[in-house]
């Protein structure tokens, strides 16, 4: 069961559970997948907003015992359900996201980027990384670099030189 105590981050378990869901890995973990040796303690995904896909995502989150991540002070433990996920997706504006905690660690669902772009705008330039049975669709490297440069938080500035070097070597 999920808890507010320490749940080890297990992104492989999350990615495996999401195998039937259409999404892009975005954010810091996308940088890791491309090979940036940076630290990130959560997984950010941008799902396709198709209704059936949102339902599949909800099922995966139920399997992962997903709850909405809220400040500890609220004392609430709101489980992720199909209805909650649909509401969150429908009302999503620029920067809209749902932050969850699962039995395999934090999983943040970004419906749209800060500039309003969503899955359909980015999937065409995305890339699939695979090994054995694991296959993960990741936001395009150029898009990832542009976004990190635009946002410019400390963790973005740390990842950028690695990502630019990875692009240079390709």
């Amino acid at each position, binding site marked *: 069961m999920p808890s507010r105590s*320490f749940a*080890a*981050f*297990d*992104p*492989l378990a999350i*990615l495996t559970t999401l195998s039937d869901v259409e999404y892009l890995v975005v954010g810091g*973990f996308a940088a*890791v*997948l491309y*090979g*940036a*040796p*940076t*630290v*990130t*303690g959560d997984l950010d995904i941008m799902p396709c907003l198709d209704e059936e896909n949102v339902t599949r995502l909800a099922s995966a989150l139920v399997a992962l015992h997903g709850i909405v991540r809220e400040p500890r002070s609220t004392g609430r433990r709101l489980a992720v359900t199909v209805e909650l996920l649909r509401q969150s997706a429908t009302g999503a504006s620029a920067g809209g996201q749902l932050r969850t905690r699962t039995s395999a*660690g934090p999983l943040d669902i970004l419906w749209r980027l800060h500039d309003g772009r969503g899955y359909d705008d980015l999937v065409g330039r995305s890339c699939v*990384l*695979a*090994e*054995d049975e*694991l296959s*993960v669709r990741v936001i395009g490297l150029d898009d990832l670099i542009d976004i990190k440069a635009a946002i410019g938080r400390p963790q973005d500035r740390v990842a950028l*030189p*690695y990502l630019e*070097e*990875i692009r240079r*070597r390709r």
Partner: protein
Amino acid sequence: MGAEYDDRQAEIDETLLDCFLELGLKARIQSAANFANAVEKLRRIRSAGDSDYAE
């Protein structure tokens, strides 16, 4: 510090990147998770002084 430090840091960064790029996808994911879990564990020990995490 200064230029010597920057050169050394650049060398470390490049070595780290080379090593990480040599890993397969799953090993890269697992390495990142191990690192994140270690950092989180240390952060909790330092912020809460919780002996449950001080193994």
